[in-house]
């Protein structure tokens, strides 16, 4: 019933890109509530990237915003850890029973117990490399906005950025990504992506609370 409610609130364009099925463990109500913001980025995150993730995620949690991420190493892991202090949703690129990376098993167990883990991949299905960009697109769909902390030219994060832009969701790219001359990130600004800086994040996060998607 929960899943049907989720699908029923989507627009036609959203339905056309939504995964055909969705499996979950935890509190599915989190998916129906807003605001939800995806915090994503590189697996091979720098020390500064970890600090940035912690800072951004803390600011979001303090505003009652649910942290959405992909349970990968690096930025995703840090985002979820902070999210445990508020609410967090893990969007898996594997069936729910598989934890990738294995090192995040305890984190995933905690999320399943007190938060929410979702996957579009049925139990027993083979985990392909293509699962992960597909998972990124689902993250874009369920989130009111996406924040990119660190990324490289070939980062899977770019799939999420483009999908979010197609769906009309706001994409915020941290200044450091643009300074690193990541070309797709610079291109995303031409289609409505915004640079997130020390100066503007406070005002933007306050605004996000107003523009959150909840069913009427």
């Amino acid at each position, binding site marked *: 019933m929960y899943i049907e409610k989720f699908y029923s609130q989507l*627009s036609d*364009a959203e339905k056309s890109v939504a995964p055909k099925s969705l499996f979950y463990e935890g509190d599915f109500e989190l998916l129906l509530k807003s605001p939800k913001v995806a915090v994503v980025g590189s697996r091979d995150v720098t020390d500064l990237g970890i600090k940035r993730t912690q800072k951004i995620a803390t600011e979001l949690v303090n505003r009652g915003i649910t942290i959405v991420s992909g349970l990968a190493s690096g930025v995703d892991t840090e985002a979820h850890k902070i999210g445990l202090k508020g609410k967090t949703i893990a969007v898996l690129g594997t069936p729910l029973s598989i934890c990738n990376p294995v090192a995040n098993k305890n984190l995933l167990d905690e999320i399943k117990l007190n938060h929410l883990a979702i996957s579009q991949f049925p139990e027993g299905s083979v985990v392909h490399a293509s699962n992960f960009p597909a998972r990124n697109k689902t993250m874009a769909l369920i989130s009111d906005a996406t924040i990119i902390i660190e990324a490289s030219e070939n980062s899977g994060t770019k799939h999420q950025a*483009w999908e979010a832009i*197609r769906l009309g969701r706001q994409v915020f790219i941290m200044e450091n990504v643009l300074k690193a001359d990541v070309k797709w990130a610079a291109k995303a600004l*031409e*289609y409505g992506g915004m640079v997130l800086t020390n100066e503007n994040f406070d005002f933007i996060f306050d*605004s996000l609370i107003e*523009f959150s998607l909840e069913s009427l």
Partner: protein
Amino acid sequence: MMSLTTFTLFEYGKKGDRSSVEHSNKMVSNLKACRVGFLDGYLKEIKSEHKGNQLESHISSSSILIPIPKSAPLLIPTAQWPAREICKVLLQNGFGGDALALIKRERAVPKAAFQKSSEARPSVQIHLESLSIDKSVKPLNSLVEDIVLVDDVVTQGRTAMACFQLIMEEFKSASIKLFCPFRTVMNEIDQWDKPKMGVINYYESGKTFHRIDTAEDDFEGFFI
């Protein structure tokens, strides 16, 4: 002074009765994600209860609806575009005769909702420089008489005023109006469902002012 007549259905703002504010915020968020079911239901209701006369006089069965572009170009033609979805819902409910996406955004402009002050929001001139007529949509017919620009929310009316000027150049003899489901209000919201006529004035100074007609003839609007 240039003027554009407006018609809006709902109030959207930050102050006032909490449940009304939250409800209007949710409706705007849904609209911005092209989740237009509530608008469809509302239009059906006012049609069936014959309360849509004012809207019908603003958007006739022969009106050409033109969606106002988002603040950035569309990544792909099928990307979500709230104003285009609103046009579809209007047409489905018998408001307007056709919809044409005649205006396109060539370059992104700063998104007004994330600007701290009204001064930081793009001016009419900045909008004009970033917009163009999409000649590929349909051969332009200069005999078009009745045009309604359509957007999701009108606040200061700068984007609408830029589109108005652009369209006026193409259709010099046409009547051009604006329809938005929502208008941003600075005063307290006590009831979000409040259809109102209004007018956006554009002054030589470059400022816009959205004046909303009120029953009490109160002075309500935005001066930027």
